[in-house]
């Protein structure tokens, strides 16, 4: 188990065990999600959209000049643990060191060993794209003082190894909260709302707390494991950023780790509004328009009763994604369309077409309002203003 306190000895880059374990850990940490780039996996350059501006992810291949080829294992561990690169340069929390700080030194060394073993790619990344004053990295010192507390993961006594493993993966290496936990105005996670969901880069990262109404309170451990392994359950399919997480990370993790994640998540407190509001009345104008829109635009795939087609077309009735506080994901997929994720075992990856050319903002809002308030669903109405902001610019 990776929880044992790691040795601080310099990792040996020829150590096959450490390297292959490191590869697994880099996968579980989904490092590739940000550090991919046009020059190759881990060569960096991908723009990470933040509320403060775009940041380009670093080249973490072992290239001596443009990558991390000169870094020591200690340097690497310090970056993960404290958010500080060699020379004292402070990293932005788009690099989720607030989560990675919990990674054990042993795991850090294994990740380092594997990253040393991949081919170096020369790729200069402009790392200073944020506007003043954020481009002065020392301001991160203040941010850290307010919001960041370094500290390795400590197993919780009295909990099972499985639960603690899940806690380590969710709150540390897997950094689930980086997307799913709301942040304050300065971009720091609000612990009191852990996993309650938030708008993010034009999507809405859903509530994955044990909330029965909008979270995973009604999901079984097996449902969560299946979703993380395949990107799909009987009633829903991953799309958008989570499809990438499943494709490049969770689908490649062991069942034991996925189960640990599920066990831990299921045991977390329910966050967010816990009970459904009364559904909007069917006879109000926006619901009547929404019903007509749904019949003509959606029913051929999602069915008139919102049940979808098992394992192909997501159900909308009772699907938590439909009921989230923010409708960003819903509006986005209606406007732009979306492609579900594919796996070798389940390659179809059904695409939802773009309706942006066909429906105006009010129509998109109304059809979503209808889907959020039909067949037993209940959630606040969607406004045209929300939709407008998600149109391609």
């Amino acid at each position, binding site marked *: 188990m990776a929880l044992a306190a790691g040795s601080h000895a310099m990792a040996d880059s020829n150590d096959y065990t450490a390297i292959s374990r490191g590869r697994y850990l880099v996968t579980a940490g989904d490092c590739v999600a940000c550090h991919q780039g046009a020059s190759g996996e881990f060569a960096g350059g991908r723009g990470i959209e933040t509320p403060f501006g775009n940041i380009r992810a670093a080249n973490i291949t072992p290239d001596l000049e443009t990558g991390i080829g000169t870094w020591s294992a200690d340097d690497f561990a310090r970056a993960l643990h404290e958010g500080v690169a060699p020379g004292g340069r402070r990293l932005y929390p788009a690099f989720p060191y607030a989560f990675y700080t919990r990674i054990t030194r042993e795991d850090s060394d294994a990740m380092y060993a594997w990253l040393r073993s991949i081919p170096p790619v020369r790729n200069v990344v402009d790392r200073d794209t944020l506007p003043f004053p954020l481009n002065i990295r020392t301001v991160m010192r203040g941010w850290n003082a307010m919001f960041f507390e370094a500290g390795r993961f400590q197993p919780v006594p009295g909990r099972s190894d499985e639960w603690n493993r899940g806690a380590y993966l969710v709150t540390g290496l897997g950094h689930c909260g980086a997307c799913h936990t709301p942040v304050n105005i300065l971009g720091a996670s609000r612990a009191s709302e852990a996993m309650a969901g938030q708008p993010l880069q034009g999507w809405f990262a859903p509530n994955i707390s044990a909330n029965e109404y909008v979270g995973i309170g009604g999901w079984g451990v097996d449902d969560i494991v299946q979703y993380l392994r395949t990107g799909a359950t009987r009633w829903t399919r991953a799309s958008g950023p989570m499809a990438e997480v499943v494709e490049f990370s969770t689908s490649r993790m062991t069942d034991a780790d996925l189960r640990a994640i599920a066990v831990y998540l299921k045991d977390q407190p329910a966050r967010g509004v816990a009970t459904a509001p009364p559904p909007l009345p069917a006879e109000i104008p926006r619901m009547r328009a929404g019903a007509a829109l749904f019949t003509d635009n959606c029913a051929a795939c999602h069915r008139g009763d919102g049940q979808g087609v098992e*394992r192909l*077309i997501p159900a909308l009735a009772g699907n938590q994604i439909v009921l989230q506080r923010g409708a960003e994901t819903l509006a986005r997929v209606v406007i732009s*369309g979306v492609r579900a994720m*594919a796996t*070798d075992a389940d390659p179809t990856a*059904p*695409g939802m077409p*773009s309706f942006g050319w066909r429906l105006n903002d009010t129509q998109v809002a109304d059809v979503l309002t209808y889907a959020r308030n039909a067949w037993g669903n209940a959630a606040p109405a969607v406004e045209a203003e929300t939709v407008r902001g998600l149109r391609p610019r």
Partner: protein
Amino acid sequence: MTRRLPATDVVVVGLGWTGSIMALEMARAGLRVVAIERGPWRDTSTDFPTTTAPDELRYAIRQDLFLRPAQETLTFRNNLGQTALPIRRWGSFLPGNGVGGAGVHWNGQTWRWHPWDFTHRSATIARYGQAALPADNMMQDWGITYDELEASYDRFEYLCGIAGRAGNLGGELQPGGNPFEGPRARPFPTPPMNMPLAATMFETAAAGLGWKPFPSPSANMSTAYTNFYGCRLGPCTYCGFCERFGCGNFSKASPQTCVLPALVRQRAFEARTDSQVTKVNLSTDGKRATGVTYVDTAGEAWEQPADIVLLCAYQLFNVRLLLLSSIGKPYDPVTGQGTVGRNYAYQVTGGATGFFGRERRFNPFAAAGSAGIAVDDFNADHFDHTQVGFVGGASLSCIPTSGRPIGNRPVPPGTPRWGAAWKQATRDNYNSTTSVGIQGSVMGYRGCYLDLDPTYRDALGQPLLRMTFDFQENERKMGRYCIDRTEHAMRAMGANQVRRNEHTGPYSITPYQSTHNTGGAIMGDNPTTSVANKYCQSWDVPNVFLAGACLFPMNAGLNPTGTVGALAFWAADAIRERYLKAPGALVPT
């Protein structure tokens, strides 16, 4: 200047049904596969989603999805005495284009052909004697039997999730199925479609006439289905936009729904679209293919070397490619010698339209491409031909596929074509009219063939294919006999007025009949009378394999796609299990 690309194991020409199936089977066997497709990439959610697919003008009338004649067409004449002229606008048939080919815009009627079809010559002689064969016929057996092909039919049906009711399970007749079908090893993968009103009325009428009606097998889905590649389909919604349209909700079997999602994930596979293969390259002795040459959209030519060449273009264009590449000896209708272009055949269509008056509401817009009832009593050799004076037959069916109003505005005979009376008749009859149709066999004939046109050329300057074809007396008799029976059925269904639909006069390329062109590169057991052996392998160039209806020595009274798909699996099996172990001719000459 032609530039040479790195070699691959297999090059596939055309990425429709057969190209995608064979490419995936080859890639799964560990071979590197490059597929070259002259049309564009196409997929459900972008190119024919529910938001844009149901557009009659764009797809059915202006023919947006089909091969554009400006890029390539063929020339046509009825007989050797005429000068062939180009088909400038498609009419009688609608060749596909782009990834998925005509598998994107077919209706989905998916049949196994009858055991008789594969041995139609020898079986006719055995039962009726040599004298029963029509004049000038070139009938010849396929060199393969239904029993040999059964497992491959099964594969294609389970690839597509075909909806139907078995009529013959391992030799035991099943109630409600087609009693004339060859024995099948297991039932259809999914249950029959729901039936429109007209089809259930035809079923009742047919049973009353002593015939044996059954649900027409359908590649529109009666229920959700997952095939053996893991590809998923949803249930058909009877949207009424099937043939000539892509399916927007994953409910019609096509390369897009059944094969491509798995194929593109194969690491050894690559598709190049917007690239027209202009010829198969041969070694200097002409006995081995070295690859293909194709031209990209910039007009640049590229050579793709390969160890195996799979010709998976549409029937007509496979034949043209053989002729352009000098593979095999072109057929000469005067001497009857040669093989390439031989036995081009089409199908006999027609039927009866019934006008029922206001008490019937057929709601023709609620329809699928293959939701309907068929009758096989008058097909193949399912009835005694001693007195009828023809060989072959036709299936009868009531499959109302569409109520799209540009193309479907039936009015009773004698109605003016415009003005107030036309408008009233259109209003009165749109919802209370239906048809029963035939799809009849056509034998091979000496004067019906394909070759290269001496005058007309395609956009790249290569000669167009030339088609020489007309219906012969045998087929006209057969058509009349079976169309008579559709009239009987229509009266039994209770129509107030019946219009007979029969093409008289020479075959015309103007009205749509069916995209069921066959022959020209036929399979057989003799290299002097066929292009390919029973494994679909070229007799002349053994590392060239053929796919599609160009292999059919005759055209049966059923839709061809089931047999096209079965032969693709059959040939892929032969390559994997026989050819790769011992590259060379699989049947000694």
